């Protein structure tokens, strides 16, 4: 007996959830394709958990439609949806053993006792917890509890599996391992999964698709690469990875279009001129997001156009150096991998930018 899957898509059509006059989720639309993992990412209070709970049926939308597979579930209670969820606090039933916890969902759906036990053991095996049947949840470590919670959700072979910040109670090392395990399991079983987190690194690491939410609305959705390299707006640029946002001037006239690749425009930052994809931004003033890693510091004047700045803060982090540099464009946050040559405070540096990690931001 194996744990299979009935993976289905999840579709939101203009879904709004209001609590009183507050719109926790505001006209949100997205699709999660069957067998993929999508992440709802955003700061606390952005509506990502409410969105997840609406998929689960723990909250019903105020307006809009939610479809799981082909079925409209907008008015259907959690119990009657084929969705299971892994909770932030794991929510293991403290008065039941590990096996009883995993059996619970199968039992209440009325499967026969023998089959229930077999399936539950199969589920525990999937998360490498054979032999823990009769332990109480309180006798397990945090990571083990987490895996019991995953097994409990998996054995129901749900159409959609939901994760509500499943790793936030684990320490940093365990967190990395668990997220890899979850991703591996999801891909192996071909599950549709929706995953909530406020940790952007976690989101980028596990997702096929990231849905960034901000103040109840979707700020941007797309693959991890799109979000990082081509943020649609300042919020996304700043939330996913750090970004220095500087004012620039965009003009298409100075640029030559390549035959292949994206359309290029000339962007002027102070006395610096960069050729960047214009991303359909009209000519004129523009915000430019610069990743801290894309800033190259030099102590000798480079040959090409550059900015001049002064180190105002320096910190040694171990794997890299972090600087704050005063430039004509404002304070800039810089990450320098070269820990061998540390720049002291007050040193004058010459700034150029790398090929990747600089992008114009849509208004």
């Amino acid at each position, binding site marked *: 007996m194996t744990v299979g899957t009935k993976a289905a898509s999840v579709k939101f059509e203009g879904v709004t959830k209001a609590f009183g006059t507050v719109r926790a989720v505001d006209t949100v639309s997205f699709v999660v394709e069957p067998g993929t993992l999508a992440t709802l990412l955003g700061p606390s209070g952005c509506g990502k958990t409410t969105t997840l709970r609406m998929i689960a*049926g723990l*909250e*019903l939308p105020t307006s809009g439609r939610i479809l799981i597979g082909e079925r409209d579930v907008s008015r259907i209670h*959690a*119990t009657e949806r084929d969705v*299971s969820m892994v909770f932030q*606090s794991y*929510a293991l*039933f403290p008065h039941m053993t590990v096996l009883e916890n995993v059996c619970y969902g199968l039992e209440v759906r009325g499967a026969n006792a023998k089959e229930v036990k077999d399936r539950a053991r199969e589920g525990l095996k999937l998360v490498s917890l054979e032999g823990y049947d009769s332990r109480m949840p309180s006798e397990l470590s945090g990571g083990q509890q987490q895996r019991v919670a995953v097994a409990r959700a998996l054995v129901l072979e749900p159409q959609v599996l939901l994760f509500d910040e499943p790793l936030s109670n684990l320490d940093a090392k365990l967190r990395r391992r668990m997220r890899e395990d979850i991703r591996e399991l999801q891909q192996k079983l071909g599950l549709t999964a929706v995953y909530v987190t406020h940790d952007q690194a976690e989101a980028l690491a596990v997702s096929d698709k990231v849905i960034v939410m901000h103040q109840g609305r979707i700020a941007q959705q797309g693959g991890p690469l799109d979000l990082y390299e081509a943020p649609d707006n300042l919020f996304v640029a700043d939330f996913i990875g750090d970004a220095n946002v500087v004012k620039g001037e965009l003009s298409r006239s100075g640029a030559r279009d390549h035959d292949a690749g994206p359309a290029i425009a000339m962007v002027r930052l102070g006395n610096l001129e960069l050729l960047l994809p214009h991303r359909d931004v009209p000519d004129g003033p523009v915000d430019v997001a610069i990743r801290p890693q894309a800033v190259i510091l030099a102590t000798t004047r480079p040959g090409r156009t550059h900015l001049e700045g002064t180190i105002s803060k320096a910190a040694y982090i171990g794997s890299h150096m972090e600087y704050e540099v005063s430039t004509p464009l404002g304070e800039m946050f810089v990450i320098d991998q070269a820990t061998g040559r540390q720049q002291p405070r007050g040193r004058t540096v010459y700034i150029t930018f790398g090929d990747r990690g600089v992008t114009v931001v849509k208004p």
Partner: protein
Amino acid sequence: MSRPVAWWLAVGWIGYAILPWYAIEAGFWGFSWLPGWFDANNAPALVQSFAYGRWWLLPVALALLAPLALLGWSKDEPGVARLLIVVGTAGLAWLVLQGFAVGLKGWSFGWMESLFGPLGNRQFGMGYGALLVAGCFIVLLTQGLAGLGYFQGDGFTAGSIGVIIATIAAFVFYPVFIVLVSAAQDNQGNFAPALFVSKILDQEIWGLDCVYSSLRCGVAWNSLFLAVLVGVGTTVLGLAFALVAVRSGFRFKRILRVLTVLPIITPPFVIGLAVILMFGRSGAVTMLLSEHFGIAPSRWIYGLPGVFMAQMLAFTPIAFLVMIGVVQGISPSLEEAALTLRADRWRTFKTVSLPLMRPGLANAFLLGFIESLADFGNPLVLGGNYDVLSTKIFFAVVGAQHDQGRAAVLSIILLVFTLSAFYAQRQWLGKKSYATVTGKGDAGLPVPLPARAHLFAYGLAVPWALFTAVVYVMILLGGFVQSMGRNHDFTLRHYVAAFQVGWTEHGIHFSGAAWNSFWTTLEISLLAAPLTAALGLLTAYVLVRQKFAGKDAFEFGTMLSFAIPGTVIGISYILAFNTPPIELTGTGVILVICFIFRNMPVGVRAGIAAMSQIDKSLDEASLTLGARSFTTMRRIIMPLLRPAVVASLVYAFVRAMTAVSAVIFLVTAQYEMATAYIVGRVEAGDYGLAIAYCSALIVVMIVAILLIQVLVGERKLGRRSAAAPISSEIQGSAAA
């Protein structure tokens, strides 16, 4: 159509077509109606409407037929939900309408008779058939609402809320409403606002003669004065006890804790009785004083002094219970901070500790105030000429006056007093809590009491504790002596008189005078306790776990009956349930219902407190795993709520055993309750038997409490006894 709808529709049809529609005089569970099933008194509604000309029951059938059209429809269709709502609402409305419109004498209202002509038919109180049909309509309506996405689309929650609202409306709001209405009527039932005004402004209620003359003051002032005295007194004593129990090195703390249990298992008037046995004209102390000091025995104890003393004894433990929590809640770090800022211990106590306790003190005062106003037993046995509202209400109905309108007016005044205090407690204190217990551990050590506070606490608490102990010894011993005060020879005659058991050829014969009321009390209490606990916990579940519009009003409604004094409940039940549509007076059912709705608020409180400690994601996990709300409740919440279940069961049982104020209006010769019987014995001067019976009751309650604890059992958490290593574990597995 969903399963619950189909199922309840079947229930509705059973109620309509099979069970007797009207209440059966001899009692439904006697099944005397079975042989004469087709009779006019016993027939179901279907037969009633065709064979006995009660055509107004026919539309009910229509409402029950309509949902059958939905057979085979998917329940996801919004049309289905709308139809259920319409049918449920219409059915309920029609049930209520016909119930009130047609009574024992045909049309209930004169204008209906003149409009439609004489009816020439009549009906009695509704019975189990009607009950099932009403239940069916409530379920149809709430399932419909859930189907439209209200209450998170959860049918169980919607149904629970529907049932709770319906029952509270029927058994709390409706009776109170009837009291209000009857206060504005003369005793013939005519609307008489002028009479109402003159009654409510009566000199006997509001007179202030005692201020400037030797005449008595109005009964309202008497009640208020006593309540303020008792409120202040119990608060001061409670604070003293709490300081001794929490903040001192007192060696007998555990004995002090016993004090907190006593009022729960003591019938309220027993203290009054013990006070009479000590200080009455022939009481033990009075006799001692007259023999050794030549102080002539007098009746000084009957009146304000006696009632005050008895209520202080009875209600100080309640204040103690409140104040323990308050004193424990003061963060030692705050006091330590004051000390490091150069305040000495007395200054710290005066400027930091006491102000932090202020909301707690106000809370204890209001509780004592409400309890004193609502107390009926002690003023009844000790009041003498000092009339208070609760006893006046009783005598207005039971005494020679038999003036229901006057009783209703007095009830309204009493109700206004207690509700104002209740409202003040919730509105004013609810927002102003200085609770300093937070999730963070507090490393501070409690600062020892300053000498002055120490002296105050010990000086009050220790003598009072001794006095209380003496009182309880009197209660236990009183039943074993010939006549307290006069003749202290050992005897069992009181117990024999009350609890004699004989053997006849038919087996055991309970020939003692108390057995009849004893068994009734036990039976009613055993019936009421689980129902009370169930309704209380269900309400708590809905309040803690569900979000819905109007939740605050819903909560206030469920807690309201707590602030309604027993005498008011008693009179309101008599007024409301003496005639159709709900005709219950003289039955055991009315006693059970009375207990359920009087004691439910405490079950709700206990449930809310316990449920708030259980992580909400546990039941959400259960729901997403496919368990219905009911299953979740049974398999997840209940096992984790065992302590609250025990508390509610114990409380409901014990309160039913000891209640007197509401019950005394509702008992009959057939359904005599122990407390009412004892009060009768006290009034007849038969103190020995009364006190013997009380001791027996106390013992029974202690046994019952232990039994319940064993039956319900401990909750199994499998938690290691050492501190939990991972923070998430605490979140996941609910606080102990």
